[in-house]
């Protein structure tokens, strides 16, 4: 059985796929993740998450073009499916509604 819920890490990876668009493949995503979060992550871990997200139907993938620095090998480009987008949106809405219910902080999102 495939789980259809979205984990926190999965959500971030999914967002990165969206951000990177045409350039969303495992190495790039891992690099972007490291750059923006400052946390180290292996390509294998990223790939495994991407694979899981694809099985859940939030992503689809196709082989892209080859480049020289990859030794002439092609890369696998991931794109978000409609389901993936909906899940992302639901997740954001859910959080927003939680934030709005939090009286001390409603209105000012930046947390010190």
């Amino acid at each position, binding site marked *: 059985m495939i789980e259809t819920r979205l984990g926190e890490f999965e959500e971030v990876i999914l967002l990165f796929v969206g951000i990177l668009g045409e350039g969303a493949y495992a190495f790039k995503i891992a690099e972007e993740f490291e750059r923006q979060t400052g946390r180290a992550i292996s390509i294998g871990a990223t790939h495994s998450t991407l694979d899981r997200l694809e099985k859940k139907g939030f992503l689809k993938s196709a082989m892209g073009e080859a480049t020289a620095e*990859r030794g002439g090998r*092609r890369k696998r480009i991931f794109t978000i499916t409609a389901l993936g987008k909906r899940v992302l949106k639901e997740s954001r809405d859910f959080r927003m509604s939680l934030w709005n219910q939090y009286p001390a902080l409603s209105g000012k999102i930046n947390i010190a």
Partner: protein
Amino acid sequence: MKQRNTTPPRIAQKLLLRFLRADLAEEVLGDLDEKFYQSLKEKHPFRAKANYWFQVLNYARPFAIRRSTRNLTHYDMYQTYFKIGWRNLLRQKMYSIIKIGGFAFGIAVCLLISLYIKDELSYDQNLINHQRVFRIYAEFEDNGTVQRDTWWHAPFASTLKIDYPEVEDAARINAVPLFGAGSKEFRRAEIPDNSYDDGFVYADASILKLLEIPMVYGSTEALNAPKTIVLSRRKAEKYFPHENPIGKLVVLNNDDKNPFTVAGVMEDRPSNSHFQYDFLITLKNFEFWPGEGTSWCCTNYQTYVLLKPDTDPRAFQEKVTRGTIQKYILPQLIKDGVPNPEELLKKAQLGLQPIADIHLDSHIKDGLSHADRKTILIFGGIALFVLVIACINFINLSTAKSANRAREVGIRKVVGSVRQDLIQQFLTESMIVSLLAFLLGLLLAALLMPSFNTLVAKSLSIPYFDWHALAIFVLAIFGVGLVAGLYPSFFLSHFKPIEVMKGSLSKGSKGSNLRGALVVFQFTISIVLIVGTLVISQQMNFVLNQKIGFVKDQVLILQGTGTLDKQIESFKNELKDLPSVQSVTVSDYLPVKGTKRNGNTFRNKDTQKEERGIFGQNWVVDVDYVKTMGMQLVAGRNFDERIASDSAGAIINQAMARQLNLSDPVGKVITNGREYTVLGVVEDFHFETMRQNVEPLMMRLGKSASMMAIKLQSPHMTQAIDEITGKWNKFSPHQPIRYSFLDESYAAMYDDVHRTRQIFTAFSLVAIAIACLGLFALSAFMIEQRTKEIGIRLVLGASVTSVFRLLTFNFLLLVFISIIVATPIAWYLMSRWLQDFAYRVELSAGVFVLAGLSAVAVALGTVGYQSWRAGLMRPVESLRSE
């Protein structure tokens, strides 16, 4: 160089491709390359490579690993075999427990004994040169019996080195207590208090190199200076804690004037070496008496040689025999005036004993304790038997239970299983049982290890991390699984489906002959072991209660009295005055092991020119000896201190009188070089173990003062000890009192017999327990098979007793057959064992009757209980389903 540095590590790539799903290879390798070249820009190539490795290892994730490519059908089949086997075990809990438990028990026993045997066989094998190091022994025929001993003359070792180019090195040791080896008082020169210690030996300097003794401090040349001593690590730690003792002075036996210098510390001797000493005192420039070094009179040294490589020991042995006898021994005998020396020496020979054989050869006298090959053989036999019994149980239960699985076999065959598959299936099952049993056995062995160690007086441990042992263990799991499963698997797989389906296969009847034979076999072994246990116990009691010629009870042995020196007489007199003391004697020669011995050749003075002389003991005692030891004078009188000529008098034992052909010994003169007039004859008393006949013995007056024997008044034991301790502390404030009891020392001489008895008892219990388990399960099964028959019999009016008789009769018959088979075997084995003792019990029929009866009782107990229950059951229970 640079070029090579900039490519991703090859091995990592290969590894990745080995486990990665093939369809992922392209993209993953690409990603990793990209990562690698990127990090190469910022980091050192080494870091980049390390990162590549990290990335590769991080791909070892379930999603990325390729699926097994193994043959699926095969794999699945084994899976079901396992499942079915496991279910079968669970379904029949009692049988499974007996099967596996009995097996595990057998394995544990077998494992423990193998470790023991391995240890016994490993003695002195770890020397690099162990094939070239020999101990030299002498072999001579004495009145038809061949005697072998290891005692040599002081100059022997050095002549070997000079006379024979084959000898690379030779060394002697003197381990004779008469010369002070064994135990001594020991202290550091600057400390006044003596400590008693054990394990002293006098040795040539080269012994360290010859026996390859590893040193902690100092070199193997350490003993090459006069007045030096080498300590073992543990003794150095005891007397010189946390310091390097080299150069320190130590004092032996309180002899302040002759201190020794510590010249080295050797590693503690490994427990599997015959050479067990803690203090080596150098023989460099040292003689026990002037002229000893060149004298061929006396034999007190054990001599080791290291032969040059490629020397044929046998040829060397011949050469050295002829050489030594002609050159040294014959002239000495002629000088001593021994009649017919050539004739005598014809029967003498030198022998080379490989160092690794020393521990196992008990027929060469050397004063050490040995494991004899016979015991090891018996042990091995027991281990094998116990394992065989356990295997038999397994086979028995499997075939007996087979009828229940006949239908399964039938169905399997009908749906297409071939015989090979079935054999495989049943072998798999027996492998599961074997594996479980081995694991359980290992656990059991670990639990039993401490008690086993006390039993055999060793410190063994299970070699968990020895890959050698591990390999044997794994092989054994498969081997035993195979052997134990072979018969059942072939037996089960040969069923014809049609017969099974029709139900014409009579349940469990096939193979009942074999089962009977196996039960007989088990019980035969058990009965033999019971007989063995009984006979050993009898012999033990016989030895301990034998009339021994002296009174061993209530005699206190006080040790270390040599340091009292001149005060010993006054100390003795003060002790004598104590009301709790009957009498006191000062002598190092006591009729128990571990006290001094001094062997001489004796002749009758009148006939000394014609006779060869006999070998006997020359003991130094005082006037109170005979009284204190409670010995009986059969002729003549005791020593008398008021008669001055008694210092040249002697008291001999009956054996001496007999062997010197003295029919009326009192007043005769005997000689061992010096002449003694016989004053009296004591009844023979045992001063060695009863394995030997009582040797001739002579006692003469003199001073040998390191031991005292004190006969106490019976009702005041503890009080007497308190008083004696008080006196001791007054006389010798710097040395703690050390005493033992004569009867305990006497019993200690039979420790080995005692141990053999315990071991036999333990093993016969194990064997019987396993045999009983098997019988229990087998009879339970038989009765289960005949439940309906019994039900019908009961309905038709059979009584409980008749059912009982019906069910037990067959089993008892088997036990009777076992008794008939076992009796001659046990008789033969035990008479062989008893031959070792000069004084022994006779094998009586009672032992065999008792063993047989106990076997019957045990069998009746196991089978009878179940038969009785079967007879008492209500027929309705078994018949209602019909």
